[in-house]
């Protein structure tokens, strides 16, 4: 069984999303009056968003504001209760799962690592949407896997069991899986959580490089406002499942927004390194009265 040649299987997914070639390549995700529910609970309500293609978008907001839920809605893992999500004009919930998987990769917040799996075996699974039922492992598959390992600096770790890696290495292995999937669009759910500062920056720099060098569209949920402002071209601020603000970080991130969304008094100053907005919370009187006296 030789199976279906690789280019065909990739095209089969893409051609389902009809439309002109140009509109197909912009990778713009939009939502129209999107409602997302878990059971009876409305988590995200009436959301109208346009996430620019070819950019890095950060979704931020307080805990339980619906950030991760929104990401699941954007990636077809959660069907909308109302409204729709479109990718370059096509409703993603009307695409086949495979067609979408050829265009969009997702790194969940806490991915499940199969017991004792090696880094390379994990990354190989990223090729799943490119393979037909009977198609054997192809040279193109291996090339994509090697490139993903190289890109994430995990080539030397390829034969190591993932469950014995450090948090930072493990995260890079998972990003390598998403890269092996070879999609234009990459969704990351809090990729820096549980990592120390060095590894947080490594992951974010990797994301920035993917965008800058490979032109990938990235949408990521982030916890840290300063990191979001530094690494994102576009920022979506959620509060209680509703849109609080959206736009370039420099345009929207100010003291009023932080107060109304996070309930934190702060000053927003230019980051001395990058010039992007930096949120500096007001000093708490109790904590610093002794020091300033």
């Amino acid at each position, binding site marked *: 069984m030789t199976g279906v040649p690789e280019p065909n299987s990739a095209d089969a997914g893409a051609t389902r999303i009809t439309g002109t070639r140009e509109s197909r390549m912009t990778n713009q995700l939009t939502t129209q009056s999107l409602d997302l529910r878990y059971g009876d609970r409305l988590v995200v309500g009436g959301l109208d968003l346009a996430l620019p293609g070819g950019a890095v978008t950060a979704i931020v907001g307080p805990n339980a504001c619906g950030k991760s839920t929104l990401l699941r809605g954007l990636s*077809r893992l959660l069907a909308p209760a109302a409204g729709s999500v479109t990718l370059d004009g096509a409703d993603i919930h009307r695409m086949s799962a495979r067609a979408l*998987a050829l265009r969009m990769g997702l790194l969940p917040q806490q991915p499940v690592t199969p017991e004792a799996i090696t880094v390379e075996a994990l990354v190989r*699974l990223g090729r*799943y949407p490119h393979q037909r039922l009977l198609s054997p492992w192809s040279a193109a598959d291996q090339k994509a896997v090697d490139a993903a390992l190289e890109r994430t600096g995990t080539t030397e770790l390829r034969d190591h069991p993932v469950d014995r890696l450090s948090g930072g290495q493990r995260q890079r292995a998972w990003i390598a899986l998403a890269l092996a*999937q070879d999609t234009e669009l990459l969704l990351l759910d809090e990729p820096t959580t549980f990592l120390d500062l060095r590894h947080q920056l490594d992951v974010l720099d990797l994301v920035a490089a993917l965008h800058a060098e490979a032109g990938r569209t990235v949408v990521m949920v982030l916890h840290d406002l300063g990191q979001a402002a530094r690494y994102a071209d576009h920022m979506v601020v959620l509060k209680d499942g509703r849109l609080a603000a959206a736009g370039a970080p420099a345009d929207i991130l100010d003291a009023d927004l932080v107060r109304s969304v996070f309930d934190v008094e702060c000053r927003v100053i230019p980051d001395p390194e990058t010039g992007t907005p930096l949120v500096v919370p007001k000093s708490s009187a109790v904590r610093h009265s002794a020091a300033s006296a």
Partner: protein
Amino acid sequence: MKSAVVAARRRILVFSGVGLLALFVLLTVSLTTGEMSMPATTALRALVGLGDAGDVLVVQQFRAPRSVAAIVAGAGLGAAGCVLQRLFRNPLASPDVMGVTGGASLGAVAVIAAGASQTLIPLGALGGGLLAALLLGAFAWRSGLAVTRMVLTGLAVQAGLAAAVNLMIVRFPAELAGSALQWTTGSVYGRTWTQVWGAGGAMVLALAVALVLHRRLAVLDLGDDSAGALGLNTSAARLQLLFVAVALASLAAALAGPVTFVALAVPHIVRFLTGPPTAASLALASLTGAVLLLASDLVVQHLLPVEGLPVGAVTATLGAPWLLVLMFRQSSPVQRSHA
């Protein structure tokens, strides 16, 4: 670390080689020994129809079908256990614990009781196995298949279906009473080529499908979100794999009845000897199951002081303590967990 992967591959190769050799030796032993012992060469010649007519009859018509039935059933049980334990992420999942072998036996007995053709037995077994899976789903699914709940419900389903088998056997006409042992405890005594070819052919097909679907099983290991993002329809994939596992176990039951232990133990043995699961270990699970069941059948035939015991008695004796050990390990607070 490269050497670790090479070592894992070598382990799998060595394990396959040893397994195949063991299978060949056990098969030769099973063909040569019995009421009428003969040298190995005579038995192997008789298998292909050469030599004394009496030897040929004994080997070709009595011993060979029994041995091949044990191999086919063992292979199916090993693969079924392997698929189920991964699918449910549960080391206790196996067709005998879940009631599938009981259901399949009931289906097979129903075909016999109805006086239908023997060739329909695998089909009846498959129907019974699916019925058991449905029953288990109806009773246990609500809680998302918690381990203990599934095991307890499965054992209840198995007990109920086994009782139904007994009920039907009591009403069997006298000439069929001899097969009671097969359908109550599991046995490969008195298999005929008709039965072996039917179930065996279907088993080869089911094993091939299981191997083809292995890629989906591996993607499911990543959890529903990652699997979904990779374009896998997780619900459909689970149902397909469940169906294949039920088919494997049911076809095994069509040949050997409700044999326990093999499907439960084989995945653990394979994992212990070769490491994390791969497509190769699924194939190895079949091989191991075949070796285990054929060996168990030789034990009941020749090594036990009591004559005429069914092979299911041996596997059940091994299986009960094994299940207990696994359950203790499951509920122990020091069960290791990786974040």
